[in-house]
């Protein structure tokens, strides 16, 4: 593991919002190319990047739209940079084709979506968590993906670094699924010194040019990379390709390639999943949350506990890949899962799938625009075991 370049690291305590913390996380992680297009509530991220980048040797460009932003960063990635784009709902929808391109060409990048309420233009300045399934399945075809959900400005800093590290390690687009509350919430953010920040360098091919096979996987199913201008004369295509990177449109090549793109996340999932538990052992009810909902659920959980209910809390830090194994395990021990979300039940579907009828799964839906009233979550917790086995 390498550590961060001190030039980008604003060591110290700051009082900033999640958007600004995300920018600082990106800079600390070594990101030096950002392309974006303004959209509330994500714009502050690129504004801070535009302000800071000239002083850390980075390049920021405001592109003509999100389609352009989400592919300009891929060009920059193949020139050797760590790259990021930042958007919200409508822009996220425009980027879907290029999530697929990055997945197919195994281009490491971070794509930040500060979720706002949709569909369409919806509530541009207000929170939601309605893009979670889009993050998993938004581009056509099959591929593995990683998505993270910070719940505080501090985590916007810490997990942005983690997002870059995962993107480099697995050569996948990593989706950073913030929400408007976390993006605009101002809290204390502590930035450690650069030598305390671990960053994953690009996995570069080190052997000879002759033996280089651009898409031949290593033991972890991920190939090493080269960059443009180093004399490799590489070919990178969104078409189905062989290990050399050449188009090869056969059923066999398709099967091998797509299986690997799925498996490199699936088979490494236990290393990637990240969740935080509180009082889950011995609980009858587990509240599963992520992002801002993990904070609105706290008073509800406390109230239920004070009334004698055995309630645990499992917060997803990594939403994709989903912690299937853990939810399966818990489902045979607990009576119910309660899943409050600022949508009508997206991650709930995952919990329900893994519970497979062994425990009751209750969604606490919300259309977004504000956060849950903790009372609604409390009542769902209280009622969740009533009909349970």
């Amino acid at each position: 593991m390498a550590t961060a370049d001190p030039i980008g690291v604003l060591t110290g305590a700051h009082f900033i919002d999640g958007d600004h913390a995300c920018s600082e996380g990106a800079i600390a992680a070594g990101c030096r190319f950002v392309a974006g297009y303004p959209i509330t509530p994500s714009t502050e991220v690129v504004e801070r990047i535009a302000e800071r980048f000239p002083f850390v040797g980075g390049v920021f460009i405001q592109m003509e739209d999100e389609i352009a932003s989400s592919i300009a960063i891929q060009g920059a990635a193949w020139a050797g940079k760590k790259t990021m784009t930042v958007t919200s709902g409508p822009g996220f929808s425009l980027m879907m084709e290029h999530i697929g391109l990055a997945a197919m060409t195994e281009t490491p990048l971070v794509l930040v979506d500060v979720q706002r309420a949709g569909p369409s233009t919806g509530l541009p300045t207000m929170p939601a968590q309605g893009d979670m399934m889009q993050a998993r399945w938004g581009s056509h075809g099959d591929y593995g993906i990683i998505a993270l959900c910070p719940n505080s400005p501090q985590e916007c800093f810490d997990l942005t670094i983690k997002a870059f590290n995962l993107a480099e390690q697995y050569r996948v687009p990593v989706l950073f699924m913030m929400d408007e509350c976390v993006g605009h919430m101002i809290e204390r953010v502590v930035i450690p010194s650069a030598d305390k920040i671990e960053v994953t360098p690009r996995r570069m091919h080190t052997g000879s040019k002759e033996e280089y096979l651009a898409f031949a996987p290593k033991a972890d199913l991920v190939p090493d990379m080269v960059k443009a201008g180093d004399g490799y004369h590489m070919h990178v295509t969104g078409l189905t390709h062989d290990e050399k990177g050449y188009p090869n449109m056969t059923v066999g090549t398709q099967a091998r390639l797509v299986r690997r793109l799925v498996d490199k996340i699936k088979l490494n999932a236990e290393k990637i999943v990240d969740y935080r538990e509180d009082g889950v052992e011995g609980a009858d009810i587990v509240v599963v949350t992520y992002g801002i909902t993990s904070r609105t659920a706290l008073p509800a959980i406390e109230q239920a506990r004070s009334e004698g209910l055995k309630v645990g809390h499992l917060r997803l830090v990594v939403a994709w890949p989903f912690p299937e194994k853990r939810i399966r395990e818990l489902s045979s021990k607990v009576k119910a899962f309660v899943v409050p979300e600022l949508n009508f039940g997206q991650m709930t579907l995952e919990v329900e799938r893994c519970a497979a009828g062994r425990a009751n799964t209750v969604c606490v839906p919300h259309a977004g625009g504000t956060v849950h009233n903790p009372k609604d979550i409390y009542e769902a917790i209280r009622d969740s075991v009533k009909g349970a086995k």
Partner: protein
Amino acid sequence: MVEEQLFDEEVAAPANPIESLLRMDRIPHIWCPGCGIGTTVNCFIRALQTSGLNLDKVAVVSGIGCTGRVAGYLDLDSFHTTHGRAIPFATGLKLANPELKVVVYSGDGDLTAIGGNHFIHAARRNVDMTVILVNNMIYGMTGGQVAPTTPLNATASTTPHGNFEQTFNLPFLAESCGAVYVARWTASHVRHLTKSIKEALGKKGFSFVEILAPCPTLFSRRNKLGDGLDQMEYYQEHAEIRHGADTKTVGMDFQS
């Protein structure tokens, strides 16, 4: 013996001078007999070979289409991206490593319909790249649908009764958006074209070369304009060379 030597591969098939920049392990290519795209590639390679550029620092970016396949045949750093988006990919590549000479090589539909917004903005920003656009006046790859470059009254599979929309005048578009070098040649003007591409590669800023090229399979035959050779002859007979022309005056009509 001399006769035996004739059958020696190296003697019987001297390497084509452009082979050194082709991925020969990917030949034969997918293009139809009589297609103009291959000729443009030949000119491009010759322009590169005489350009004096360090070929390890040249990157070619294509979108999607018959022309979009060009990147995949060139033995250079080459990127085959998504439909219409070669220019923003190339923008990121260039900005992230200014040492690179970045060339976008794609079709008329790709660069001016779905990618039209990126085209005008890259010209406006004067991004340092050369854009080579093969204009066959049609969407070739998808089977001959109308393009913004299809001449008025020409037919296409989605304008079976004739195209009633106005046609883009691309040199005018590029110039008015800020391109520093603008040219149009045809696939039959191979020497002029080669020289022009070389000039474009030598310019700093957004340079643009449009190449009229036959698509016999889906444009010229459908429009009763003959095959590839007939189109090439038409270009030779009717093309007019006007250096420094006012680009406003170089719009094109349907040839029949």
